[in-house]
């Protein structure tokens, strides 16, 4: 809080970066300035890699897909009309890249689930295996949601941004964020509730 008060950006937060700064960098990058785009990468890499990791379940794959997403963004940036929406656009590109990757790899999430269970093997405890299986299921549930629901759930429930920050990131109003988040959570809950009851039994 104190850092924000004196204008220092909270580390690893998209919304803490002034939109005008992102927009200015995006304008420069759209003209081919690699240094400006590199700065955009430094501001967004954490979010992009984590979103990819949430959707893919593997850190190495997440790195690869995040790089691919950044390169695609650099190529397509001249066609982005509203450069102030770079962050939301970048997250959309990331979810698309993840989806393409999963399509190429087949049902990666199911494979990941099996791999996780087999991989844990003798070293991992039953608790670790259970956690990995849970993560694989959550990934699967996330991947069945529409893209805009994935993004708003990620920003709120995983990154912990406030409604205002999400509105800034997505370039929409706070009431629109509320509406989207409500629909996204409803969709997620419908899918997740049976599993929630299974893995988190009532005390």
């Amino acid at each position, binding site marked *: 809080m104190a850092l924000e008060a004196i204008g220092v950006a909270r580390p690893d937060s998209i919304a803490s970066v002034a939109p005008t700064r992102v927009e200015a960098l995006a304008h420069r990058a759209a003209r*081919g300035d*690699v240094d400006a*785009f*590199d700065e955009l*990468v*430094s501001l967004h*890499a*954490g979010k992009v*890699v*984590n979103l990819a*990791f*949430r959707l893919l379940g593997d*850190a*190495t794959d*997440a*790195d690869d897909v*995040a*790089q691919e997403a*950044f*390169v695609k963004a*650099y*190529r397509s940036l001249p066609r982005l009309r509203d450069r102030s929406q770079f962050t939301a656009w970048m997250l959309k590109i990331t979810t698309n890249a993840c989806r393409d990757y999963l399509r190429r790899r087949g049902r990666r999430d199911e494979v990941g689930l099996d791999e996780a269970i087999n991989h844990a093997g003798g070293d991992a405890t039953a608790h670790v295996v259970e*956690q990995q299986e*849970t*993560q694989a299921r*959550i990934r699967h549930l*996330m991947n069945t949601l529409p893209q805009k629901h994935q993004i708003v*759930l990620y920003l*709120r*429930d*995983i990154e*912990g941004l*406030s*409604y205002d920050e999400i509105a800034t990131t997505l370039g929409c109003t706070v009431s629109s964020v*509320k509406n989207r*988040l*409500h629909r996204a*959570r409803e969709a*997620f*809950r419908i899918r*997740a*509730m049976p*599993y*929630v*009851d299974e*893995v*988190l039994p009532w005390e």
Partner: protein
Amino acid sequence: MTETMSRTECQGFAALVDEYMDGELDPRLRAACEAHVASCPECGQWLARARRAQELLASGPRVEPGRGFRLALRGRLEVEQLRRRRRERVIRSAAAFLAPATVAALVLVQHMPAGRDRLPEASRVTASAAHGPTTGPGTPWMAPPQTADTGAAMVRGADPAPVPRLVVPSVNTPRSRRGVAPHIPKPTPAAASPEGPTTSSDSGDGLDSVLEAVPAPSVHAPIQFAADRHSPSYVTPALAQTAPATPAPPLVRPLPAPDGVFAAGRDTTFEV
């Protein structure tokens, strides 16, 4: 009644539950939600499950980009930048070549004869008036502008001045192109009157006899049977040379003039 009220409250709570869980409600609504959860076991249970689902979603490790992430990405971006610059250079050089070429093509098109139907006439008049008799059609775009204009005016008949003029019907035009049989004046030894025009054969005999009746031009030139003489408004080269500035009569069939003068038309060639 109480059940109905409770159901309405449950619906209201369901609409606000996300903001309630996120702590984004104002104190008054938050207090109302808390009171409802306390009084409604179903909603309380549902809220607990929703919170567990949210926790499940938020659980899981966070990752940081790999050690070589930025460096590898920077390399790929620089390669992309080079490609983009090369593409732009190609586009720029293509534009630098195409822009003058396009302008030149436009200028050329604008200075060409206007219509496709005009080209044969221009070439014929050029061949006859400017270069004398030739054995083939001239090159239309090589013709001097005034000559081409004269030919076009003669074809279109812009000025129907009653100058003795021979407009030979399309005797040699193939029937497939003419559509209907042409009518040409039947020449008689006494007078070349156009009364009672007869159908001519395609042999060109009718044409020769008509030409015999024409007053001899001062400069005799042989009739040019160029490829485009099939045009219905064929003009002998000699006449084109003697009266180059005189426009041809209109191609449409004119009405008889009130003074009894039969004006020149498509099938008639002389004043009477």
